[in-house]
């Protein structure tokens, strides 16, 4: 394999790189704007782009796929390469912010592909802008259909894979199929194994990254980590979900993926207006919290705005949102600087990992539904997140925490004091208490 994930990112032909990229919704952009979108990615300091291959978008009529043509995948990837960027292709197959979860209508409507409740009725899932039947991961009909789609997508990607093309990694995420119902982990693992094998057999040498569903039990998460070349947890969260950032980091580590975590896959850059609204303050918060918890790479979702989304650093007309563009640049600079003191193989909760404690002071002492004792919390007024593993690095990393905040607050990066409002919250390094 010429691409290999490491604690610091990935190695490409022996050279270390960071896995930092931004999602460009290329099918929503006219082809004559692709170059400008890719210019924006470079302008913001990204080395790669992510793109979604959405089955629903590419199935022009029932059973007939169109991945080529003037607006096609190959032409976009050729432009990616011409701009000196690499690409990560996310194959889903479930995209919660897409219409119909990204599945063709005929698949959604097929009773053989639907999850059922105890009374035999379809279960439902909210997607833009309606409820759709939950796809049944354990359904042979659905799995067969998904394998057909993956096979066709892999065939189209074969010409674009490194070293002939710019595609360096593939993304597979099954957790969105049923975020509320938590399907049997065995069904998800079986589907992940078969879909992953389909990709590996057709695209040998390309690493497959898996998204780790938040609901997955630890034993199953370890199995999933074993199926993946890299394991990622999303940080598309907001301040009220603070506790989940630590929980997701811990889950990645617990899954045994400490050597290849990709916390921040994706990292909220824009947000679908269908979901919980996110502001710039949420984005800053997630980026800082992710960095403090060992985030070593991310996919900005979405780099370029698209219909139904808001808050992306690059607007749909490809002009820059100055504040959000600044947020991306700062996050990238911090990621580079922090690597110098980040322990190798770091992760929250592992010996030798970062020993961080920080507090959030705000009008809401704790996010809804979170109990202080689940978080090492000390009561209302502040929220503590601490590495439960003992280690000698505590003092140094406490300093690191302070430094992180200072770095963000522009001193070392030439911004003016107060040019980014952090008033809704503050981050402070605090001593770990056990």
């Amino acid at each position: 394999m010429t691409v290999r994930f490491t604690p610091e990112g990935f190695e490409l032909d022996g050279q270390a790189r960071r896995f930092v990229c931004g999602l460009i919704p290329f099918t929503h952009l006219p082809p004559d704007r692709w170059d400008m979108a890719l210019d924006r990615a470079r302008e913001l300091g990204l080395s790669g782009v992510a793109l979604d291959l959405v089955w629903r978008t590419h199935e022009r009529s029932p059973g007939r796929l169109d991945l080529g043509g003037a607006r096609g995948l190959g032409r976009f990837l050729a432009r990616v390469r011409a701009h000196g960027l690499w690409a990560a292709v996310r194959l889903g197959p479930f995209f919660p912010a897409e219409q119909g979860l990204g599945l063709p209508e005929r698949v959604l409507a097929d009773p053989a592909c639907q999850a059922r409740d105890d009374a035999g009725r379809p279960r439902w899932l909210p997607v833009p802008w309606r409820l759709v039947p939950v796809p049944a991961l354990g359904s042979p009909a659905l799995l067969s259909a998904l394998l057909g789609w993956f096979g066709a997508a892999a065939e189209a990607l074969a010409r674009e894979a490194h070293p002939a093309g710019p595609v360096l990694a593939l993304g597979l995420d099954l957790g969105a199929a049923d975020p509320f119902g938590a399907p049997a982990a065995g069904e998800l693992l079986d589907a992940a194994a078969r879909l992953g094998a389909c990709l590996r057999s057709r695209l040998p040498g390309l690493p497959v990254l898996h998204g780790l569903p938040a609901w997955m039990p630890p034993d199953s998460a370890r199995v999933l980590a074993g199926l993946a070349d890299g394991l990622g947890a999303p940080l598309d969260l907001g301040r009220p979900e603070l506790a989940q950032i630590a929980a997701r980091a811990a889950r990645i580590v617990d899954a045994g993926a400490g050597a290849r975590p990709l916390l921040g896959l994706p990292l909220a850059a824009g947000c679908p207006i269908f979901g919980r609204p996110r502001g710039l303050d949420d984005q800053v918060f997630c980026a800082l919290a992710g960095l403090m918890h060992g985030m070593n790479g991310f996919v900005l979702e979405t780099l370029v705005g698209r219909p139904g989304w808001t808050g992306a650093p690059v607007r749909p007309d490809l002009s820059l949102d100055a504040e959000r563009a600044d947020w991306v640049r700062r996050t990238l600079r911090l990621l580079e600087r922090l690597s110098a003191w980040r322990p190798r193989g770091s992760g929250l909760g592992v010996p030798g990992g970062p020993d961080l404690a920080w507090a959030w002071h705000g009008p809401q002492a704790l996010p809804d539904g979170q109990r202080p004792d689940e978080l090492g919390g000390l009561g209302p007024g502040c929220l503590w997140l601490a590495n439960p593993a003992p280690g000698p690095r505590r003092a140094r990393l406490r300093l690191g925490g302070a430094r992180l905040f200072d770095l963000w607050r522009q001193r070392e990066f030439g911004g003016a004091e107060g040019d980014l409002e952090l008033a809704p919250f503050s981050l402070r390094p605090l001593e770990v208490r056990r």
Partner: protein
Amino acid sequence: MIDPELEAVDVHPEHWLRLTRLIDSLFGGGRTIWSEPDRLARALAAAAPRVRADMDPADQARQVLAAALADAGRTPGPLLAAWLHLPFGLLQAAFDRLWPDGTALALYVVDEDLDEVWSSLILRKARGSLELLTTDRCLGADGLDASAWRTDAARARAALARRVAPVHAACFCSREALFAWLEAPPGADPLARLRAAGDVLLEPWPWRVAGAVALGRALVWARRRLRPQDEVEHGSR
């Protein structure tokens, strides 16, 4: 009532965030469903017998909302109960009487301290359904001049008519006027005073829309009486 392929374009992030936070603080929607995934999961499961794929999304949503309220042990007020339990055909008919196809609704709230649009929302209806959701950003350089919004409103309305659809109802107001109106107790509706002072411009403002807005305000107040601990957040900048 809602097109499943509703287009949401040119949505200004801050306008959307402020508006949704305001609505959340008024109605507690986030606390009821969104902030508690388990509750949403339970509501989706409880609503399953009454949901069909071919339903209007608004009808699907009210089934889930009814289940969520039942799960939370909350009794809806009379207006919300009517929305939840009346036949959907009646609601659709009322919606069509209230808002003709091929027209737009517009809301502009201006922060006069900063001379900027604090929030905006522009909606278009076609074939009985809401089909476009956008904000002032859809007008680009022709957007409302916040520093002279009282005199510029008519031009912005005309621009909306050209770019989106003829405006069926429009409200332009200052942020202070919006909150003064929302916070005034029932029976002390300051709308007439605010209009006279020029802090609220309602043009056009058909009587059916006026009636629906008054009912909506009554609904907000009914909910606030039920939850006196909640305060209306003025939103963040």
